[in-house]
């Protein structure tokens, strides 16, 4: 027993190393499989508060670009107003329309923490469960899709960006409506994605637009990017192609979180179908 104690004190560095290393690896691996069950992330109050202060300062530096973008969006929206069309019929009567029911609701939020140069990238935004954000909602900005919400606290939420090893979204070619899956490329380039599993019948062209399919979190037709290269690694029975992403992730300032009001209904139905099989 005494010899054992002497042995342990003599090589205490090694045993301490084992203890601390195992502890940190357990945290690391547990965190990976349970999707951030722990509190050590940037949506907790202390780090979230710090990031909010810092981003307030940073946003001053990007005001000009942001203004330009807003002006462009304003003009686009004004073009869709009823008042910008000339009405040539005189008889008008009001109809209470019950056909339309709102499906998607958009919640605007500011990005307060962002990264693009890691193997797995996350964003933090300054809206949380109090403003109606829930886990699993899609996130877009006015240029295209950004990612999906994975953790929500009262005032902040963390978004798993498209630039993440596990991110996959349903996408389609804008012209011939062929369905595929968009994910991030292998070489950690924040401007390139890969469109996978497009059927062999499709005849894609370089420069063709890729948009969301409407099967997953996003409404149909939100831009993702443009095809830049057709000859990436062959994927067997399906076509793979390289896509230049429409969103510049390093310059994100404001994003819209999409609340699909029929999502729970759809999921419930699909879960039921799985149970029946």
């Amino acid at each position, binding site marked *: 027993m005494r010899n054992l104690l002497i042995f342990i004190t003599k090589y205490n560095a090694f045993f*301490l190393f084992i203890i*601390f*290393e195992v502890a*940190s690896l357990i*945290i*690391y691996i547990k965190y990976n499989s349970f999707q*951030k069950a722990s509190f050590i992330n940037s949506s907790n109050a202390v780090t979230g508060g710090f990031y909010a202060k810092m981003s307030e300062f940073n946003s001053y530096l990007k005001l000009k670009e942001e203004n330009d973008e807003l002006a462009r969006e304003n003009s686009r929206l004004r073009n869709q107003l009823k008042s910008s069309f000339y009405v040539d019929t005189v008889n008008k009567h009001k109809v209470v329309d019950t056909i339309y029911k709102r499906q998607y609701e958009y919640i605007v939020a500011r990005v307060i923490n962002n*990264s693009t140069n890691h193997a797995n990238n996350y964003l*933090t935004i300054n809206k949380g469960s109090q403003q109606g954000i829930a886990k699993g909602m899609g996130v877009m900005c006015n240029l295209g899709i950004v990612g999906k919400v994975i953790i929500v606290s009262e005032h902040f939420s963390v978004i798993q960006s498209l630039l993440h090893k596990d991110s996959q979204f349903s996408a389609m070619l804008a012209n011939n409506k062929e369905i595929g899956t968009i994910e991030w490329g292998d070489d950690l*380039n924040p401007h390139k994605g890969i469109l996978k599993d497009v059927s062999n019948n499709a005849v894609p062209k370089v420069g063709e637009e890729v948009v969301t399919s409407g099967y997953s979190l996003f409404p149909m037709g939100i831009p993702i990017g443009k095809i830049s290269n057709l000859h990436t690694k062959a994927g067997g029975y399906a076509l793979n192609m390289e896509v230049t992403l429409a969103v510049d992730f390093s310059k994100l300032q404001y994003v819209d979180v999409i609340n699909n009001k029929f999502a729970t209904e759809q999921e419930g139905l699909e879960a039921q179908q799985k149970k029946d099989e």
Partner: protein
Amino acid sequence: MSRNIIINLIRFLVLVFIQVFLLKNISLYNFSTPYFYILFILLLPFETPNVLLFALAFILGLTIDAFYDTPGLHAAACVVLAFVRIIFISITVQKDGFDNEPEPTLGIMGFRWFITYASVLTLVHHFFLFNLEAFSFSQLEFTISRVLLSSLFTVFLMLISGLLFFKRKERK
């Protein structure tokens, strides 16, 4: 002694601040990202007890993790770094023959010793960090090139900071 504690506490806060709000946004061609905060562990005094050294490395790692959204990743790499530091110092430095309060800084230990110390420890830390982050050997070449270029960047920053706060107190 209490002066030592205060200096190290300030160093901890300053390094975390620089890492999280400045260096986190810097990356050269997506290859070279500096992790300058490990300088805190490198500069702890020689007679720091092992338990304290490991605990500080663990806490530093977790603090960085909280801001990087990667619980455990930096903590694991920092603990490895602390272990390698103990081995490296026990091999290269004789424990007796110090004058008062020796620290492993550029001014006290000399240029040659410090640059070997900094590069070996940085390489080990970055090697662990990037491989643990990638968590697969399928892109080993890519990861290794990131390790080498990032280490270069980090050691460069350490040398600059060493020369900025240079106090010549050569060991006898």
